[in-house]
Structures are given as structure tokens and as C-alpha cells.
């Protein structure tokens, strides 16, 4: 059995936007950058819980909409003077389809 689950097409996310994958453990934000890279992170800023999917994307960073913390989409680590890490998930693109690590979903199930 494959370890990845199809969550949609790359085209379903406009460039420089993000969309949500809802799981029992919370929401995962899936980002598509200007250069068509795809990233998956918890939709929750470690600072005050801001929904990162609603932030402004620039390069491979996301600025939280609540208090402007900036996170690296690759590592989930806060940039600049702020400290904190957002959980990232394995994600890949095959034939224009976005595949998310099944563990991202089942982990949340276990957590329940």
C-alpha cells in the first residue's frame, strides 16, 4: 500500500495561495509557491494559533496574518528574531496530483 494519499490537483491551488486539508487532528495548510513548489504545514502559528494559510506568501516563506511572524515553508522554522517551529508534512507532486503523507492523516487519527 502506498504511503501517500491523493489530496487534489496542483491546479486546485492558485499560485501563491494555500488551501486546507481538514483532518481529525486539525487543519493542514497546503501551499503552492510562485515557482510551483508545494509545501504542507500545520495551519497553526506556534505564537497565537494564527491560520497560516491566510497569510501572504513570498518566496518560500509565509507571513502569519495575525502578528506577522514569518516562517520558512521548507523547515517550518520561524525567521528573524522570533522563535518557533511549525510542523511540516511530507508532500510530493506526481503527474500534477498532490500526494500527502498518509501519516499526516492517520497520526491525527491516533491522536484523537
Amino acid at each position: 500500500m502506498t504511503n501517500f494519499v491523493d489530496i487534489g490537483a496542483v491546479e486546485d491551488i492558485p499560485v501563491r495561495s494555500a488551501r486546507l486539508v481538514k483532518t481529525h487532528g486539525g487543519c493542514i495548510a497546503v501551499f503552492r509557491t510562485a515557482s510551483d513548489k508545494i509545501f504542507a504545514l500545520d495551519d497553526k502559528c506556534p505564537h497565537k494559533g494564527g491560520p497560516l494559510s491566510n497569510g501572504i506568501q513570498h518566496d518560500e516563506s509565509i507571513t502569519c496574518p495575525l502578528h506577522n511572524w514569518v516562517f520558512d515553508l521548507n523547515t517550518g522554522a520561524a525567521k528573524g528574531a522570533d522563535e518557533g517551529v511549525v510542523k511540516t508534512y511530507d508532500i510530493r507532486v506526481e503527474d500534477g496530483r498532490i500526494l500527502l503523507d498518509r501519516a499526516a492523516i492517520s497520526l491525527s487519527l491516533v491522536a484523537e
Partner: protein
Amino acid sequence: MAKKLVIIGAGMASGRLIEALLEKNPQAFEITLFNPEPRGNYNRIMLSPVLSGEKTYEEIVTHSDDWYAENGVTTYFGETVTKIDRDAKTVSTKNVTMSFDSLVIATGSAPFIIPVSGNDLNGVMAYRDLEDVNAMLEASAKPNAKAVVIGGGLLGLEAAAGLKEQGMDVAVVHIAPHLMERQLDPAAGFLLQQDLERRGIKIHTNGFTKAILGHSTVDAVLLEDGTVYEADIVVMAVGIRPETRIATDAQLHVERGIVVNDAMQTSDPDIFAVGECVEHNELLYGLVSPLYDMAKVLASTLLGEQAAFQPMELSTKLKVTGCDLFSAGDLDEGDDREEIVFRDAVRGVYKRLILQDDRIIGAVMYGDTADGGWFLQKLKAGEDISDIRNTLIFGPNFASGAAADPLAAVAALPLDTEICGCNGVSKGDILAAIDGGANTLEAIKAKTKASTSCGTCADLTAQVVQIGLGDDFVLPQKETICKCSDYSHDDVRKLIIQKQLKSIAEVMQELQWETSCGCASCRPALNYYLVCAWPGDYVDDGRSRYINERVHANIQKDGTYSVVPRMLGGITTPNELRAIADVAEKFNVPTVKVTGGQRIDLLGIVKEDLPAIWYDLNQAGMMSGQAYAKGLRTVKTCVGTDHCRFGTQDSTGLGIKIEQKMWGAWSPHKFKLAVSGCPRNCAEATCKDLGIICVDSGYQVLVGGAAGMDLRETDLLAQVATEDEAIELACGFYQLYREGAQYLHRPYKWIAKVGLDWIKEQLVDDLKNRKALADRFHFSQKFCQVDPWAERASQGKEAHEFQPLADFTKVAAE
């Protein structure tokens, strides 16, 4: 006893001479200064920024009347010296005669007026002094005014760009096949022409002026090829000739200029000359840097020291914002010469080096001139470049291997590198000033004069100072738009218009953004500037908007949203209230609140529900209240004459009319209004961005209030008699703010920057301008007054925002 020194002319060379004398020995001379212009010395090379409106005259004055008085210089301004009596050693004007021990002639130059018929008509002018600039500004104030500039050299093009900036229709007639033919080669001349044409300046090369047409004032310029350009003014900028009449009359040796030796002495040993009126070794000089050198040499001569003037290589920069060009040395082709050329057509960059015997003898650059100083240094030093020839054209960063750090590059420069070309200040001079005790940038600039003339070397000067002072020095932070760019908000706004930039990508490309796609600070600012600059043309980039504006609701601390429907003037109906109540029940809205802006706020709504709620509110005739926008928020009103026994005018009706005109508009920051029906001011208009207080005799329009982090009472902009005037004034003010303020500045901050007087000039004194601003606002509104809720609730716009990509919460656990 001090000797008597008389100086004729208070231009830049003479100003520098007086400074040098005072610095070396303030007691040596009793100085008397004559000037035909009714003022002292100002920085004449900065007239172009004054013309374009980037600077004021006060900012370019270098020596004020007080300065002369403090330094004991006797001045006769507005007095023309008509005679030099060499035997009696006196000079005379109409009113006074003054004796001298030494005399300095610094009469400068006069503009050359081409000998065609009509050159004496009213409206034909030169571009030489403040009077000329004032005459041009006056002409440009007329609507649809047209200017023809004859001469496409440095001065002519600066005049053309300045006049265009002032809103005139400008044509440049140039006699040569390409612009600035003395400084540029054809390729660079062509790029420059393209840039200027893109700004709407007509360029006519190979243009020979046949006549200037008109009766008493100029109407048009006729060229040999039959072309006619209409003109309200004609600016002659074809060249200058040394002003030598007074010297000729005194029978001094005069050729093209007043002939001087290396010590700046004329054929009479007690008479000296400096500046543009001088001829030295058969050469004339018109740029400021050699003139300053002459002044220094003459100061030494007058004090009995040995000094000799040595001509040097000169470089040229054009002071037109957004046109970067650099030229130095000899640009001609030749059999014994080679050249290295770099072109980037997309970026409009052109660089060409002319080499002879492995040495740079000429350099011309267009579009990217950052390395100009480095090439000039090599050119002056006659350095053998054969070792670095392969990468020479890419400049110092590449040539030295890595040094992307600009400070490292500056640190590596030799001490004799010239930092400030105008004032001949070397890196060594600046470091010496620091050793001498100057420990701030201002002190060092005052001491060395570095970057005090044309200012193009300001960054470089600061960098050298930084190296000299080390950790004690903090580079002055120019307020840039953000870390992605070196431009200020104002520069960016100006360049968007000038360069006709119409997308964020274009702005970042053309203005050399340092990041690939900006950041969360600059992207929303750029998006707004483009929305404002190109209504109907620019496609709004939602990805560059803060979340509130992107999803048209206010995000709350827990990631839910609040929804505020518009209620014009704070007036609602039972039907609207019923719909709001229904929505609140249907969607389990946890909090319903009345806001400070006389609206109703539904709080705690999950994002996915937004379109459905909007749909229901739309059905009841309500639209977005834009309570989330950097844009028009609310117009608060009181009940005015409808019900109130004190009301003087229909404040409710006026508030509604204004809100009908303004809803949907974007601006640099939020914009809140209120209209009160009488001075009791129940609508609290005196702390709004714009408030109106109705009085018996009309409407007081107040601006610049604040009741947030800062608390500020409004100031009166004007009182007007009718409702229509009040509406036009309000819309005009809003547009002036929209076009001028920096992103995220509320009106009170912007007013503090530009001054209320200036705003009154624009809107109260100049009714045409007020109307034009209001018209531009109404035009822009045509594209903004679309309810964003309806687009999303009924037309499926941006549906991806509100729906998850995948939902595993509805899938049974595996």
C-alpha cells in the same frame, strides 16, 4: 590691515572661493561681493530638481544673507558692475564705486540664444537661473500648456523632464542625430530617447530651428523640415558662452573666455578670474568640479601661496529621476581603439568601455551606472586593465572575485579615489576629516563638502564614513519601502507613474527589487499604488493583499471572521435588521455588536460560512461594509434637520450622499468620515480623517483628525456654501490623499509631511485642481464600486478561499 578684495559675481565658483579664503585666513581680506542676480549663491546645478518639484529653492541655497553678514562679506546684490578702471583700481555700478587691491571676475556664462527670427518674443527663455525656473513654473500652471525645448543636451533634457513633471506637453528639438551627442554614443542616446519618449516627451532629432513664430508672445516653433510645434514657452538650452564683456571693456586679454594662467591670474596681475568665464590653456569649463578646483587654486594664489590649476577627466550624470546615465572620457571609435560592450535589452542596460593600449579612455553607461565611479577611477589613473579585461565590464564586484558586500568594495578603494566629483573630495580627504575629529556624517560633510552639491555620491560618502568611523557609525536609514528595495515609498509611487509600470512584477523588475517576489510589507503597498495609479487598467492581485481585504471580512484572534454590512450614513431599516437577525440565528453567530461607526458587526463566523452569510445579506439588499479595508470605512451622521431641533443642514442626507460616492474606494489606510448637523457635533466629526460640521452659513470641511493610537483634532480645510461644494471638496481631498500618501499612513500623518497649507493650495485656492482631483476620484470609482460579497456569494469568485482542498474529517477512520 586687511586688503580690499572685490568679487564680481556670486555664483558657485565665487562662493567656493570665499569659503576657501575664510577657512585659510579670515583676516586677510575685506571682501565685497557684487551680483546682478538679487540674491547670493545657490546650488545652481540643483535647479532641475526645483523645476521638477523634487526640491524647493530654499533647499538649494548654499549661502544665505545671514551667512555673508556673519562672515563680514559686504554684499551688493542686484547690482551689475558696469566698469572696471584698472588705473584707479576701482569698479563701478550705477550707484557705487568701490576701490580694490585685488579683483576677481566670476561673471560665469550667459546662455547662447540662437539667431533665428522670433528669438526675442515673450515666452522665449533660457535655463540658467531662478528667474528662468520661476517663469517656467508659472507657464506650466496653465492647463494644457506646451513647451518646446531647443537643445537635447544635459541642460535641455533636464528642463524637458522637469517641465513634463509639471504637467506640460513637451517637445525637444535637437540638432544632432542623437541626444547628448557630446557625452553619449548613439546606442546610449537611443536608450535615453526611448525612456524620455515613454514619459510622453516628444523628441525631434536632426531638428533645425528655422523660426520662432508669434506676434508679441510665442505661438510655435517652425523647423527647417516644415514641422511646427505649438508652444507657450520656448526654452533655449543650446549652450553657453563665457560672460566676458566687462573684461573686454577693461582691455584684459580675452579669447573665447577671459584668459588666465595656472594661478588664475588674468593679463593684469591684480585681476583674477574663476569659473565659467575663464579660458585656461585654450579650454573652457562648464561643470562644477573643475570650477571648484579653480576656486581653491585662486584662494591660495590670493594668499600668496603657490598653486596651479590642472584640468582633469570629467564625468557626467543626468539629473532626471529614473534615467540613469554616466559618461566619461573619450567615446570616439578609432583604429587604435577597442571596445567592450554589454547590453541587456530587456532591462534597458547598456555599457560600453573604450580602450586604448589596455587602458580605459572612455566609458558610457545607461540604465545601470553603479560602477561608473570605479571605471572613472581606472580611467583617471590610466591603469593597465589587461589582467581583468575578461570581466572588466561586470564591474568591481566581479573583477575582485566575490566582494558582494558593498562596504568591502569601498574599503578596498585606494585613498586617492575620488568620492565626490563635484567637490573633488577623495576617500583620503574624508578619512583625514575623521582623524581631525569629525565624528558624524553631518560634521564630515560640513568639513569636506563631500556630497553637498549634486548629491549623487551620498551613498558612497556614507559608506566611506562608515569605514572610517567603524562601529560608532550607524548608516543613516533612508526610509525605504521595505528591506526588499532601496527606494522610498515616494520614489516608488513617482516611478510607477513615470515609467508606466503596470504590474507588481514589472515594478520589481524595473526598480531592481532585491527579493524575487517581495515580502508581506511591500507587496500590499505596491498593489495599492498600482490600483491607485491605473484605475481600470491594473488587475488587483489578491495574493498581495492582507487576509482581511482578500476575503472581505475581518480576521479575529481565533481565525474566525467578523461581518459588517454597509449601512449608508448609519441609517437602517426594519427589513435589514430582520435579515441580520435571521443570519445571526441561522449561522449561530456568537456575538452581535453595534460598532463605533454606526454599523452592526456579526462576530465569530467560520471562514467557510462567509459566502452563505453574504448571500443572505445580499438578498436583503445589503452589501459589504468594507469594515476590513484600507479604504473608505463609514460615514457617521447625526439626525440633522430631519428630527433634531438644533440641526442646521441635512447632515444625514449629506453623509449618505458622500458614502454613496465613496464606498468601495481603496486608499493608503482606512478613511473614516462623519457629518454633524450643528457645532454640538453629535457625530464626532472633529476626530475623523474627514469631518463636516454643518453651520447656518454652510459646511465646515475638517481634515486630519485621529482617535486611535494618536489623538488629534481636525483642522479646518475650508468652509463652503453648498452641499455640492462640500462633496467635491471631500472627494478632492480623498483623491489627493490617495495619490500622495505613503501606504499605511493615515491622513493626519500625510498632512504632517506635506503641510496643511499645501493641501489648501491644491484644493481651496485652485478650484480647477479640486475639480480635476474629484473627477479622477469618480473615474476610479467606476471600477471599485462592485460589491465584493456578491461576487463571491453568487458568482463563485475565489471559491478556493472558502473550501478545503480535501476533508478527511468526514471519512471514517481506516
